[in-house]
């Protein structure tokens, strides 16, 4: 019945929404904790237009270069997601973890887990706490694969350094909204892919480098390597990443109020960068000229573009409004993805 409802919704979608969903859902249902982005990188490659030539640098970033001449515009979205890494295999067979990225650990406590290995995923569970049930935050989380000894866990294929997440699924909600985990930043990756698919390469007057970056969640590390490589040459950088929105019943309304479904957002002021007002104005004018829905706001979080600013490159980050960031129940609106992709394309072609 639930599938029938989803199918009915899909029939009613416009072709733009349907394409956005087809791209996004595949990205969201792939796994790639920071430092282990290979599965996501392969999905990105598969979804790119056939003309796109890709390069993978030593940091794992995936590059697509288009357009003539020097002085590229850089457009970057990150492939990685939050999660855990196996830190210790304990004598009792349980696994002690290291977090990768920032999130509320309570959202993972007592939930199914997946340990990602080269030979496939090992099912497991995040253990419930033994004590301290009067507090929201649990003690450091551990994972069980059902083994009672270290040797038992290792015999199932568990090894130090493997990454761990929770099973996830892209699920359509009412209207054009959807839920899943790691929309941050698979929405950004999807926007780049959709923009490349629609790009009119004959209109490009300068090079554009699309970068699908690694290890953003643990300190913008992939983007930092790319910025170092490009140095002072880029004209501008546009990080395409989440605009964490206060459009939620639980958030204060004093900032970050970009409505989901109302279009892309200029992330004009966050914890890592401030876009010069003249550039915000130019972006707004471009969106208006192309008929693209754009909101302007300020939110929290850092963005990959900020690693370029030490080289004198202006960072003009953009995003889409996301509810419930870094949770297993993030919510987006596909209309925002369409407008974000249109804006990325407009930047490449016209700015």
């Amino acid at each position, binding site marked *: 019945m639930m599938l029938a409802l989803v199918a009915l919704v899909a029939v009613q979608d416009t072709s733009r929404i349907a394409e956005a969903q087809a791209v996004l859902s595949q990205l969201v249902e792939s796994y790639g904790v920071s430092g282990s982005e290979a599965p996501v990188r392969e999905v990105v490659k598969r979804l790119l237009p056939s003309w796109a030539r890709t390069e993978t640098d030593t940091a794992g970033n995936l590059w697509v270069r288009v357009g003539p001449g020097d002085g590229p515009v850089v457009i970057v979205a990150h492939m990685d997601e939050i999660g855990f890494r196996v830190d210790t295999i304990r004598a009792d067979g349980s696994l002690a973890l290291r977090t990768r990225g920032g999130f509320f650990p309570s959202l993972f406590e007592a939930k199914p887990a997946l340990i990602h290995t080269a030979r496939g995923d090992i099912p497991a569970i995040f253990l419930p706490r033994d004590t301290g049930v009067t507090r929201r935050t649990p003690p450091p989380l551990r994972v069980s694969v059902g083994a009672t000894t270290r040797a038992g866990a290792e015999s199932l294929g568990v090894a130090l350094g493997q990454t761990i997440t929770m099973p996830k699924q892209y699920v359509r909600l009412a209207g054009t909204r959807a839920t899943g985990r790691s929309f941050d930043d698979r929405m950004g990756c999807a926007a780049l892919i959709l923009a490349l698919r629609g790009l009119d390469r004959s209109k490009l007057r300068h090079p554009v480098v699309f970068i699908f970056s690694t290890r953003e969640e643990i300190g913008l590390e992939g983007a930092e390597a790319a910025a170092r490589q490009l140095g002072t040459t880029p004209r501008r950088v546009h990080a395409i990443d989440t605009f964490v929105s206060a459009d939620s019943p*639980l958030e204060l309304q004093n900032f970050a109020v970009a409505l989901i479904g109302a279009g892309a957002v200029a992330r004009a002021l966050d914890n890592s960068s401030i876009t010069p007002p003249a550039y915000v104005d130019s972006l707004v004018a471009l969106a208006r000229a192309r008929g693209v829905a754009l909101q302007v706001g300020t939110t929290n979080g850092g963005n990959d573009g900020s690693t370029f600013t030490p080289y004198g490159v202006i960072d003009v980050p953009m995003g889409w409004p996301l509810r419930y960031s870094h949770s297993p129940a993030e919510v987006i609106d596909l209309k925002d993805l369409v407008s974000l992709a249109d804006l990325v394309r407009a930047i490449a072609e016209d700015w």
Partner: protein
Amino acid sequence: MNALLVLVSLSLQNPESLAERFAGMTAVTGYEQAMTDTLLALLPGSTRDRIGNVTLTLGRGAPKRLVSCSLDEIGYAVGNITDKGYLTLRRVGGGPRLYALFDQQIEGQRVTLFGRRGPVPGVVAVRSTHLTRGRPATPEPPFTVDNAYVDVGASSRDDVLALGVGVLTPVSLTKRPHRYGDRLLAAPNAGRRSACAALASAALSRPRVRGTVVVAFTVQSLYADTAGWKAVKNVQGPFEAAREVTMPSRFAETAVETVSLRDVDALVADLTRWMVGTGP
């Protein structure tokens, strides 16, 4: 029915498959109809009484014995709908002995609303971790149902009603039974559901019972009273013996309550012996 369909049908009815299938169902106490519909289809000859219990009578004559499992679960019902299209919840079942983190398990997770037009996916809102940065961090008590806002993607009350969802619609954590380790099954209420799966498996094996055995899948065991079980006793009794089927589990009342499928197999064998009159 061709041979392949028979094989598929039998494989879906083995204890392991039934345990996983039942663990994937939702039966919020007092709102168990969808699961009892499944039981009626699964168990030829079974009937549903006025309160909702499903019973199957095996054999005839004396002695008359009762074997039962409770199929309901603690869950939620929609309590209100806001103008912006969020739903607030009321817990159904539980009581003072409820696991202190029971409500916290739905925060920031997928839930399913069992509306009049079918299941509707939703999520329970959670604060965005980014927006807590730079604000004072103080130890917090666990999340409770009073802070639960369900987001189904709607923008208004009318959007919600159009989905077939309204006040009293049952809501539960979305069920995704999870196999791990050596034949372990993790799911909310895995113990209760595995007990019912074992009982259904034993009944489906059509044992040659001694006298009469009433097999009952009871409802409303977790609310103000054990109304379902009492109704079976009062309507179909008296019984010379009664057995309530339970299954040992780890991490009870959590979303990863875990049972061993070996224990399910053993329980089926034990129940079958009890029905034919050779067990304890």
